[in-house]
């Protein structure tokens, strides 16, 4: 299959006054056309950082190295103008919190107009309204609501509007950063339906970031499991669930009997995420790993290829 976007050796750190947060280290993954990749991991493991980097949306204190190749070009080294032309048109993003993602003093239609005009100044108003209406209806919002302001929508409806904005220009990649996390359960299901529908009908790759294993099982083709800034396991969905390789993945799947509602935290396992400002030598999971070996404390495990899957663990090296 054709690769749509490829991430190689991506490392990202945040420079802070009191130290440097190593939020992502040496991430490698790729997404093919029409494929859905899920990035899963508990809160604070670097998922959003990775997702934002794909649109070069990181804050000014962030430093990213490695490469994010889209259409043969590295996004990380693009000029402001180059990336501006890609954002919203070729790669778009849906954020976690729909309540704050729409400009409160702009009508919904003006958000669409802004998006369309940013990429083509010659489109007339009638055409813009058509594009916006189409996208809204595809996300389950009536086109009648184009004239409404964001505060006239519920959280779930706002997230649908955000999704409509993300798909309006038919991008080839859409990053969905925990699109249902801040919504209540019923609405979560509805939004997932919208996404599943898009996956079926539109020709695009979805990078779905989540800490909910239930959602992963529902939509993902491939999964990248993150722990403390590293991708510890990368596999297709079938193999991952049938035969998890990394001890973290194994514990997760074991500790969450009903994956429908499972989140990624290991409540019954002692220890917690290492401090990303001060990462100890060796494997980042070693304090919580039941299979820990001597070498795990001394040396950082490399990425190991095993039967076409990738895993970062000394058990396989």
């Amino acid at each position, binding site marked *: 299959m054709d690769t749509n976007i490829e991430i190689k050796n991506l490392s990202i750190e945040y420079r802070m006054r009191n130290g440097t947060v190593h939020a992502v280290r040496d991430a490698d993954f790729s997404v093919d056309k029409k494929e859905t990749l899920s990035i899963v991991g508990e809160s604070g493991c670097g998922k959003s950082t990775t997702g934002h980097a794909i*649109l070069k*949306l990181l804050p000014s204190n962030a430093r990213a190295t490695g490469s994010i190749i889209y259409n043969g070009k590295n996004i990380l080294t693009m000029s*402001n103008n180059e990336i*501006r*032309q*890609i*954002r*919203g*048109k070729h790669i*778009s*993003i849906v*954020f976690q*919190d729909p309540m*704050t*993602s*729409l*400009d*409160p*003093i*702009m009508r919904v239609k003006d*958000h669409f107009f*802004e*998006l369309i005009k*940013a*990429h083509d100044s010659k489109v007339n108003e009638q055409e813009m309204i058509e594009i916006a209406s189409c996208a809204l209806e595809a996300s389950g919002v009536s086109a009648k609501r184009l004239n409404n*302001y964001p*505060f006239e929508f519920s959280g779930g409806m706002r997230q649908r509007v*955000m999704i409509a*904005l993300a798909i309006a220009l038919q991008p080839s990649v859409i990053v969905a950063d925990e699109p249902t996390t801040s919504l209540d359960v019923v609405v979560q299901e509805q939004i997932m339906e919208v996404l599943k529908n898009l996956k079926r009908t539109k020709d695009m790759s979805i990078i779905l970031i989540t800490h909910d294993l239930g959602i992963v099982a529902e939509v993902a083709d491939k999964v990248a499991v993150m722990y403390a800034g590293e991708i510890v396991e990368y596999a297709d969905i079938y193999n991952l669930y049938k035969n998890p390789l990394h001890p973290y993945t194994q514990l997760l799947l074991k500790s969450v009997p009903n994956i429908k509602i499972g989140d990624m935290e290991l409540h019954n396992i002692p220890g917690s995420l290492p401090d990303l400002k001060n990462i100890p030598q060796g494997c980042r999971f070693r304090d919580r790993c039941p299979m820990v070996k001597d070498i795990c404390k001394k040396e950082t495990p490399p990425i190991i290829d095993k039967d076409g899957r990738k895993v970062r663990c000394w058990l396989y090296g």
Partner: protein
Amino acid sequence: MKLKTYILTRILLSIPMILIILTIVFFVLRVLPGNPVLAMLGPKAPPEIIHAMEHQMGLDKPIIVQYFIYLSHIAVGNFGTSTYTSLPVLQELVQKFPATFELTFYSMIIAVSIGIFFGSYAAYNFGKPADILARVYSIFVYSFPVFWFGIMLQLIFGVWLHWLPVSGRSSPFMIPNHIYTGIYSIDALLNGQFDIFVDAVRHLILPSVTLGVVISSIFVRMVRSNVLLALSSQYVIAARARGESERKILFKHALKNAMPPILTIMGLQFALLLAGAILTETTFSWPGIGNYLITRISYRDFPAIQGAIVFFAFFVAFISILVDIINAWIDPRIRY
């Protein structure tokens, strides 16, 4: 709710506020030391003349009766008669007002322009030299006393360089032929008298720069912090993610969202601006209401003092209504 309904409601809601202001002005002036009748007649006046005068001015009635008479008079636009000039106070105020309006208007333009441009430029360049400069500017200028800064400008541009006049609002005989608004810079233009327009503007520069610059320190800080807040919000990142340019993000999203809080604070600061205007008017012998108030205080002209304060209070109330209306027009959440 429609914008019109909002405006109407807002105006009705300001009636209690105005009543409170009127009440406070009335009672504060009554407890201040100084007897207007004595001030008029001199300390050696015989008691029967004093009583006759008090009776004529209604000062022998119970205070609560005086209060209601005062309210009913103001309701019909009767601000009383000056004890100093024997002219109706309202007439004097109306005559002085254009000068004050002209000064505050130009000061406001200076303050708002400096505030918005410098403030949003600083926010946009957060942490960079432009931002640090803006912060130093606002702390530094905030500490300027109005009269000191005014005198400095007078010294430099008037006394040493002889570039600009240091007092009054016009040179002798340089008054517009026809007075339409009382605002000389506008009337001169309406008459096509460019020499008089230039003269009026030359007189305006130092006082309005004095007041404008001092007030701008607050505006720079306010605009900077509100734009910073807006720039860090999620909808700005979302707009960026749609491919919007940084310049449009700054003006269309950040500055526009920052405007309602900025305007609200500007409206609240308006009383401060008027206080500054009083000081500026005295420093530059500017013949406006501020100067009028200060002069009449020294003559114990109570009706005039009361009238000027009530006038200022109405002005502040009017500005706060105006600010709320503009905010409702910008931000739909307010008017619904």
